[in-house]
């Protein structure tokens, strides 16, 4: 005989109740604000206009280099379809270690200081979850990539945006960092080269930041997913600054530099104590990154993949110059993005908000670009335009934006 209170609560799941199933949701999940990018995506998708040129993407226009795809296909043919070790194939971790040393002069032990993740996204998640306790404050220079703040909230942390400005080329200044620090500050998230601004920080510019990090005993999560897309000179990794290696969790991946977004391959590196905690979470939630993706990533780090990467970088650089010049020629202020594949022109002179501008541009000008306000503080008044699109499309898009601007006058 089942007692009444033990019976399954069928009635509660009645979908005709006006609040549907909402009340089952944990408050931290319910309270994540809907992403502004998602709203804009729906708007663009709803328009069904085949003629729209999109500068709204966040990924390369190249397909993954054929050698890389071929290596994965071959591994499937050979039946490599099993789990890999939790931290990822040792061969791949060794290759990543060698790559980071060659490219950025970083030394990480593939055995204890590295975990292969499902995209840089998982690396960000693992790092934040491993570090945040309820009430901790996470410092996030903005405008920035949209995932840091929601993941912080999921762990009960508080994301504190630090506004950066076009006048400073959207770099984090020591003064504004100092001003944002409280006794609760625990983590500083850095993302240079930056999505959405294309800003970078040089070694010298990061030195005073490192000093403050040390002074206030902060941990840095450095999202360097766009490291390879640095156009004037070489990328400086925050972990390569004196005393910063132990205080930094480096998050990166293959999506951008190797045109491998759909593979979901990334990695995180850091102090063994931090990585082993992240690895525990990874082990219970993910087990391991996809094996065929790991095989592909390993191929990407060999000669063929690296040459293709350099060729792609050169092509982004050419298109970067083209769009920046294009925006300036049509009278929009546009700081020079030194990395990633975004231009971030100001549309303030039009008197419209970035949301109004982006919507009107979409409907009247038939160009999609992401309004800056979705990237947090300091994004209002700007437009994120991804230039990873063919020269012909870019040229056409620039002409359309120019015409659209004239129609506003």
């Amino acid at each position, binding site marked *: 005989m089942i007692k009444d209170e033990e019976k399954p609560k069928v009635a509660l799941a009645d979908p005709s109740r006006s609040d549907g199933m909402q009340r089952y949701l944990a408050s931290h999940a319910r309270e994540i604000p809907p992403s502004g990018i998602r709203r804009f995506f729906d708007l663009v998708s709803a328009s069904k206009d085949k003629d729209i040129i999109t500068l709204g993407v966040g990924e390369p226009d190249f397909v993954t280099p054929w050698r890389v795809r071929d290596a994965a296909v071959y591994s499937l043919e050979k039946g490599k379809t099993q789990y890999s070790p939790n931290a990822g194939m040792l061969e791949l971790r060794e290759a990543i270690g060698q790559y980071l040393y060659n490219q950025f002069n970083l030394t990480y032990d593939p055995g204890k200081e590295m975990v292969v993740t499902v995209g840089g996204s998982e690396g960000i998640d693992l790092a934040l979850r491993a570090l945040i306790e309820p009430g901790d404050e996470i410092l996030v220079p903005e405008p920035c990539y949209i995932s840091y703040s929601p993941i912080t909230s999921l762990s009960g942390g508080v994301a504190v945006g630090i506004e950066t400005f076009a006048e400073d080329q959207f770099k984090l200044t020591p003064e504004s960092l100092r001003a944002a620090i409280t006794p609760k500050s625990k983590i500083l998230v850095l993302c240079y080269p930056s999505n959405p601004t294309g800003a970078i920080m040089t070694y010298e510019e990061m030195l005073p930041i490192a000093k403050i990090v040390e002074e206030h005993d902060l941990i840095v999560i450095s999202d360097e997913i766009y490291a390879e897309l640095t156009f004037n000179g070489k990328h400086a990794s925050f972990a390569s600054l004196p005393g910063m290696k132990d205080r930094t969790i480096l998050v990166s991946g293959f999506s951008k530099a190797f045109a491998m977004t759909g593979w979901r391959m990334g990695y995180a590196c850091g102090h063994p104590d931090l990585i082993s905690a992240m690895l525990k979470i990874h082990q219970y939630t993910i087990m391991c990154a996809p094996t065929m993706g790991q095989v592909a990533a390993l191929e990407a780090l060999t000669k063929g993949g690296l040459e293709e990467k350099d060729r792609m970088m050169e092509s982004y650089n050419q298109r970067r110059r083209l769009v920046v010049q294009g925006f300036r020629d049509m009278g929009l202020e546009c700081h020079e993005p030194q990395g990633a594949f975004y231009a971030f022109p100001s549309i303030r002179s039009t008197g419209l908000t970035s949301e109004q501008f982006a919507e009107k541009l979409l409907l009247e000008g038939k160009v999609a670009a992401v309004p800056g306000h979705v990237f947090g503080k300091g994004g209002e008044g700007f437009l994120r335009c991804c230039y990873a699109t063919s*020269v012909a499309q870019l040229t056409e898009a620039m002409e359309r934006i120019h015409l659209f601007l004239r129609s506003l006058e």
Partner: protein
Amino acid sequence: MNELKLSILDLLKEDARLSAATIATMLGAAEEEVSAAIAEMEQDHVIVKYATVVNWSKVDDEKVTALIEVECTPERGRGFENIAERIYLYPEVKSVYLMSGAFDLLVEIEGKNLKEVASFVSNKLSTIESVISTKTFFILKKYKQDGIIFEEFEDDHRLLVSP
């Protein structure tokens, strides 16, 4: 060749219609410098021609292309130069290469139909004195030519907007 010229060639071989101004912006160089470099390369026959790559299989009056391996006797002092010239002067000959290996010249011929190509081989090519033998291979389908893939891909699979 200097780096600027190489970069210009890289861009032009993908799109010969790029203007000097656009190329200059893309390479971060001065427009005059780019124009001068292009003029120089045209003069030096580094840039031989600005031509269009056509997928003839999409055009109604289709053409037939054949590759012909030609074995021939070189001439004292002149090697294969004279005979190559005698072959490449025919307008139906698209390309002529001197090859290493089992034969000497590789000749690409284009004609309206099989008969036309066959008659060129038997009447013109084989009758040249120093030609010893020919082997003709008709091209059935072109997949890729000069680095350009003819197959049409659905080109952009990306989401219209992503983070």
